[in-house]
């Protein structure tokens, strides 16, 4: 499949292909409508089995000079993520020439597309003698059927475009020091995933990758506004203190509410010392006992994971928005049957929240302060997805939804140990439908290669 975006072949070498699994009746992919941030998610409800499309006819002899490529009508038989199984019109129940294409590509077109380009439809070789009157056949098969909107290709291309431009400055969580944000520049964009380079990093450093909707990204001026630790060149700090913005500065209008914050959250109810449960930002397979270490402006809190030795410098603090779906009230894990990683010095089997709160003299953050809304997300265990490995986020890997707890998903990377699993929110912008990598020309990582025992 030709993606809508061109990349160097070397960047896609050894990319995993789902193709051998797509026809397996037990293969279930999360539908595109589960991923609000994914390309074409907003129009996907109108893409369905039974639709007619125009697609290249590869079942033909030789092409003529007059018609260098040949097209025919096909019916969508099955949809798996972005992939659709098509059957050329006229094959009836014969599935021998069924084939898979990506619907998020320039391979498929609405019926009528060929005529607007002066291309005649040419029936596949296998069935060319099946009917005497193809006009009559197509008229009967197509009248009253559904097809794609006429601007489908434009919609597909538009939905792949990032709202960010190369060269924009922004403030990004420092990958080596998560308690601070650092000024960075957008260096590369693949499928709305940004490769940013911190202002002070060595030339050879590959930078940091995250989706443009990631809560780790913030507009220029964010750290100063919310009171977060910032690492920036002196001229950056000076011009911001004078309220001067550059044309290359990514401003608030490019970001979502969690990335920007809001004065509406001037009083969040959280205060320093409150205890809670939180996904460990450095080990996403763990939900841990945590402490609010500071309350910032605009709805942000700094938390510390109690599992680790306390770092007096605060280098292990991490900023979460108070409405983040990755922080939970005390007792969340117990009530949902999730193992809670206890504080340093406590055993998982013996840890007791009540005793711990008495021992430490802390109070739990009130459950009413947390985001408890559970969207109708549609994920169920067993669904296949493509997911960024957030411990090395330039990698997007094949994965399976292992567990669903409300809006929380346990994502398992196929072929890897459970310790590499990631707890992610159902609206995380780091998970994608099957076929996403192919559509945006991002390499897809397969399972690790097993070496045979000697």
């Amino acid at each position, binding site marked *: 499949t030709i993606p809508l975006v061109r990349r160097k072949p070397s960047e896609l070498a050894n990319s995993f292909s789902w193709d051998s699994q797509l026809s397996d009746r037990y293969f279930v992919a999360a539908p595109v409508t589960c991923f609000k941030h994914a390309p074409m998610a907003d129009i996907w409800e*109108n893409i369905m089995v039974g639709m007619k499309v125009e697609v290249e006819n590869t079942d033909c002899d030789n092409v003529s000079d007059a018609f260098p490529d040949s097209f025919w009508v096909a019916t969508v038989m099955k949809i798996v993520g972005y992939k659709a199984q098509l059957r050329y019109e006229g094959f009836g129940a014969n599935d021998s020439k069924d084939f898979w294409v990506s619907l998020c590509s320039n391979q498929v077109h609405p019926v009528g597309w060929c005529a607007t380009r002066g291309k005649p439809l040419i029936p596949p070789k296998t069935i060319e003698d099946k009917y005497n009157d193809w006009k009559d056949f197509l008229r009967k098969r*197509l009248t009253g*059927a559904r097809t794609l909107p006429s601007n489908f290709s434009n919609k597909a291309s538009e939905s792949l475009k990032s709202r960010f431009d190369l060269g924009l400055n922004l403030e990004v969580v420092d990958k080596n020091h998560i308690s601070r944000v650092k000024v960075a520049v957008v260096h590369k964009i693949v499928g709305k995933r940004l490769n940013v380079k911190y202002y002070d990093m060595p030339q050879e450093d590959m930078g940091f990758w995250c989706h443009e909707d990631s809560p780790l990204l913030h507009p220029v001026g964010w750290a100063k506004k919310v009171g977060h630790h910032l690492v920036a060149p002196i001229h950056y700090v000076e011009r911001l203190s004078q309220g001067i913005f550059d044309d290359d500065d990514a401003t608030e209008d490019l970001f979502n509410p969690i990335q920007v914050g809001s004065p509406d959250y001037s009083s969040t109810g959280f205060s320093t010392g409150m205890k809670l449960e939180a996904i460990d930002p450095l080990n996403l397979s763990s939900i841990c006992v945590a402490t609010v270490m500071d309350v910032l402006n605009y709805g942000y809190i700094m938390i510390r994971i109690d599992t680790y030795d306390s770092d007096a410098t605060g280098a292990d603090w991490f900023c979460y928005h108070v409405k983040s779906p990755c922080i939970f009230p005390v007792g969340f894990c117990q009530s949902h049957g999730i193992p809670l990683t206890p504080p340093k010095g406590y055993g998982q089997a013996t840890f007791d929240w009540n005793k711990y709160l008495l021992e430490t003299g802390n109070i739990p953050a009130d459950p009413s302060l947390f985001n408890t809304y559970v969207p109708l997300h549609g994920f169920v265990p067993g669904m296949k997805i493509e997911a960024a490995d957030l411990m090395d986020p330039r990698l997007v890997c094949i994965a399976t939804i292992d567990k669903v707890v409300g809006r929380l998903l346990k994502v398992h990377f196929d072929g890897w140990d459970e310790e590499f699993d990631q707890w992610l929110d159902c609206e995380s912008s780091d998970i994608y439908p099957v076929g996403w990598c192919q559509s945006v020309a991002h390499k897809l990582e397969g399972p690790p290669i097993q070496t045979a025992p000697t």
Partner: protein
Amino acid sequence: HVEAKPRKWEQKQVQIKTMEGEFSVTMWASGASD
């Protein structure tokens, strides 16, 4: 985030070109163009 909007299916006259000639049919297409 883009919220999914309910879209109407619209009847459209679609032109088809074959080697034997052209004709049009009425099909349904979603209103994704709005």
